[in-house]
């Protein structure tokens, strides 16, 4: 059985590769810091994330040997990222789209610094445009048991 260990000798990468990857990572760090001082608007986030992703891929591929190892590890690694992405995207389908039908539905959260209720006046204001009288009242909904 012991001879098995010799047939599957692990892949030993050259020293220069590790040092090279390390240098690239530090270089990219400097680049991303430098770029953050230039204003591209919303693109700043995109660029920063792009650079971070490249750096992360280098770490995963070479330091963590994903490039050389069993592809199964890659599958699990990517599926984690996939489910994370699903989590963020679908949740945002909710959190960013709550005002689709009525603006007011998503209103309060965005403006509240510390919990402060909208005053009844605001509500009255919304209702002002309506002119139905309760005189025609005839349906009663009761919350007592």
């Amino acid at each position, binding site marked *: 059985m012991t001879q*098995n*260990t010799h047939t599957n000798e*692990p892949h030993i990468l050259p020293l220069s590769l590790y040092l090279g990857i390390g240098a690239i990572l530090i270089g990219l760090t400097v680049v991303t810091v430098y770029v953050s001082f230039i204003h591209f608007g919303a693109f700043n986030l995109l660029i920063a994330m792009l650079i971070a992703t490249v750096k992360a891929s280098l770490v995963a591929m070479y330091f*963590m040997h994903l490039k050389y190892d*069993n592809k199964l590890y890659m599958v699990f690694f990517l599926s984690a990222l996939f489910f994370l992405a699903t989590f963020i995207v679908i949740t*945002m389908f909710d959190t960013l789209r709550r005002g689709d039908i009525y603006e007011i539905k998503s209103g309060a959260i965005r403006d509240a610094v510390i919990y402060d209720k909208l005053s009844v006046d605001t509500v009255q204001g919304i209702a002002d445009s309506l002119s139905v009288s309760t005189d025609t009242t005839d349906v009663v909904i009761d919350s007592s048991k």
Partner: protein
Amino acid sequence: MSQTQDGHPSFLQHHFSDVEQQRESAKLGMWLFLVTEILLFGGLFVFYAIYRAWHPEMFINAHTVVNIGMGTTNTIVLITSSVTMALAIRSMQLGKQSQTIWFLVSTLLLAGTFMVVKYFEYAHKFDLGQLPGKFYTFTGIEGTNPHVFFSAYFLMTGLHGIHVLIGMGIIVWLIIKTRAGMFSPQYYTHIEMTGLYWHLVDLIWIFLFPLFYLVG
């Protein structure tokens, strides 16, 4: 290499049929553990993403108070420690035990540096009242709910910091065991697993850094 009577190496557990199977199992197990780590941090990334999407101005305003210099220093320190960790494994693969110890000690020192810098950053924020949640007393940030930014900041860097500390503990243990001659080019699973863990901690920092320090 010490062997038991039936020719199996001493580190081979009874339920594995050979060393290769044992090594592969450990590695797969470690990767699955890393997957759980990613999703654990992932929840916090979701927190960050949702609130950033809700309050973009506040996040941009808030990031101006974090210290880019310290953040950059820490990023470079952590990347370097990842390199030394990878080299420690390589040295063990080549059977150079003393070199392995040397690289592990460097990794430990770099991790220590990271934590010291982190300490100064935290201390500064504590002084200014830039604290999470209801302890937030700072007044210099415009926008909605700035305390949420610091909640995310402290939770994410804090959880990351705890991982660094745990990693340091494991590296100390590795140094002791390597000195005692526990590992060989045939058997260095513990060092390899620690390496994977350490790189993941680095990998998470690679995302935390721009999110908090660069693009607020």
